């Protein structure tokens, strides 16, 4: 018992301190089933590519993803030719050339994702004063609550915001001009108009493009984009931990043996 006491106390104290991070001024978005959750979770390849399509056709009109390059799309199952085709649809500023001029050319797979605005000021000016945030690590940047314990929370939140628009704010809520009411956004008044609706994109793989489906897919894509090495990390982790368990077991046996004659 005497030995258990410190451990039990520590665990109890950790739990009450752990509640510390669960703070809110909007309700937590409901938990969704994500294929990438959990110790061995992996990304659903179909969902990733559909999610990229949603980003590419909708989100990218306002939101940059500065940390990503077109070549990274190999990580969601596009082959070299497909990636080159996707990049070639974009116009990239390059230069200076021999004459010292900047010039535009078609994108290459080594280019970074082309941003919709030249700079943050231009983005803010075009969006009523609020620059749309870069989406590269948005899922990690919005994690909160105990769900965050498993690297989650962020996906639920982004999904919640995409689905959380309401045409009319609740009675008594004073919605400022040019803002939209969103159930899960902190403060409820968000500058982003509802970006997705049923049928906003036509999925190339024939999946029915309902709002929840689009949101689910784009969040899957954004979660991958926030940490493209996640599957790698979890796979490596499983091996490392199995090895450590075995090693520690052997060490425990050795320790018992060495100390046998002393106790």
């Amino acid at each position, binding site marked *: 018992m005497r030995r258990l006491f410190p451990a039990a*106390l520590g665990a109890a*104290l950790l739990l*009450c*301190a752990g*509640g*510390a*991070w669960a*703070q809110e001024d909007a309700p937590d978005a409901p938990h969704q089933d994500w294929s990438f959750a959990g*110790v061995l979770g992996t990304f659903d390849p179909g969902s990733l590519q559909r999610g990229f399509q949603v980003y590419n056709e909708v989100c990218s009109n306002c939101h940059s993803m*500065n*940390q990503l390059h077109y070549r*990274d799309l190999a990580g969601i199952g596009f082959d070299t030719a497909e990636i080159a085709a996707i990049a070639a649809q974009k116009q990239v500023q390059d230069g200076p050339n021999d004459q010292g001029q900047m010039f535009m050319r078609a994108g290459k797979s080594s280019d970074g994702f082309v941003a919709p605005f030249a700079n943050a000021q231009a983005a803010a000016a075009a969006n009523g004063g609020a620059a749309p*945030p*870069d989406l*590269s*690590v948005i899922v*990690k*940047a*919005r*994690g*909160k609550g105990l769900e*965050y*314990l*498993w*690297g989650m*929370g*962020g996906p639920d939140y982004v999904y919640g915001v995409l689905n959380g628009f309401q045409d009319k704010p609740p009675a008594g809520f004073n919605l400022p001009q040019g803002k939209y009411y969103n159930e899960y956004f*902190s403060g409820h008044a968000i500058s982003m108009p509802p970006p997705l609706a049923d049928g906003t994109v036509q999925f190339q793989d024939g999946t029915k493009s309902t709002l929840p489906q689009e949101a689910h897919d784009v969040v899957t894509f954004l979660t991958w984009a*926030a*940490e*493209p*090495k996640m599957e*790698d*990390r*979890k796979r*490596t*982790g*499983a091996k*490392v*931990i199995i090895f*450590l*368990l075995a*090693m*520690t077991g052997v*060490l*425990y046996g*050795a*320790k018992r043996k*060495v*100390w046998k004659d*002393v*106790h």
Partner: protein
Amino acid sequence: MAGTPSTVRTNNKLVRWIDRRLPLFSFAQDAMIDYPEPRNLNYWWNFGSLAGLMLVIMIVTGVFLAMQYTPDSNLAFNSVERVMRDVNYGWLLRYIHMNGASFFFIVVYIHIFRGMYYGSYKEPRELLWMLGVVILLLMMATAFFGYVLPWGQMSFWGATVITNLFSVIPVVGKTVLTWLLGGYAVGGPTLARFFSLHYLLPFVIVGVVGLHLIALRQHGSNNPLGIAVKGPQDELPFHPYYTIKDLFGLGVFLIIYALFVFEMPNVLGDAANYIPANPLQTPPEIVPEWYLLPFYAILRSVPDILFIPSKLAGAICLAGSILILFLLPWLDTSRVRSAYFRPIYKWVFWLIVIDVFALGTVGAHRPEGWYIVIGRIATLYYFFHFLILLPFIGWFERPLPLPESISAAVTRKNGVPVGAAPAEPR
């Protein structure tokens, strides 16, 4: 207790040739093989070597991360993301380093509380303890500088809040602050100097750890009974007994560490640090990393005291809460080391543990409602514990009788202490 230094036992001619000129092998033999330790050390004594290992892990991963990192306020955030995405196993290096900071503090805090429970700071180990407090201070500075480097929102605003503490220094405060920041606000020059210091301080820590170990070897480790080693029967050689015990403990530790690195690497950090620093937008809450929360709570809990504004009073209490540890060997007046034999202190110890956790919880919440009340009570109790309780308990407490020697207390044959009369069969 350091005996006569051992010489390396080997027939290898090359080893003997070197050792006669540069006694590295003899030193290793003396320090890691023959080195006598009390025979009754429990698993709480594993945390010293674990702390040493964490220091090595942090330096090694840190050196490699520094090869990819750019200390420029426009590039820092992106360079960290580049490590996560394009550097081979960069994500692993960064997550080991990032979570390593937390685990370094977990290990060191347990190490400190262990010293407090078993009275390891008492005569003749006062300087050993004080060097430990120096290491803690250096670690806090290093961790703070390191947290600024990714240049996220919490990096920037944390740096702003903490450096602002220096502005409370009377008269020269503002000048000192400008000098520290390299400007009138946290910015590019601040980041560059924090990176430089973040790279420097770990090596200073290595130096102080060296002194810590020299001081340790002078009188050897304390032990759970807190009584001095009386002879070889009370000791065991470091190898194989404590090498294997440390290795087993290391295995358990690495499993927990790996769970965080691979399965929940961002749990101990703040999500807001994945938002690039924006000097124009204050985040809704500015919280330091979890390991500084108790001290942050003390800083925020102190109200205006007479003519001293709460900001200055809070900063004084914050500094005092750590500096008071330097005086611990003299504040604790009991001559008995181990709480095992101190019926009152044994409980008071757990109260200060709970108090520190309470402070940590308060530090993580907005200072409103009950959190203000709890924060003030816990802050008062923290100082009450060290300044009033410890000296008085030492005077009034009647310790239990101490065992004759370590070996008499712990060596058992068939569950009966050696030398005790066997129980009469009924």
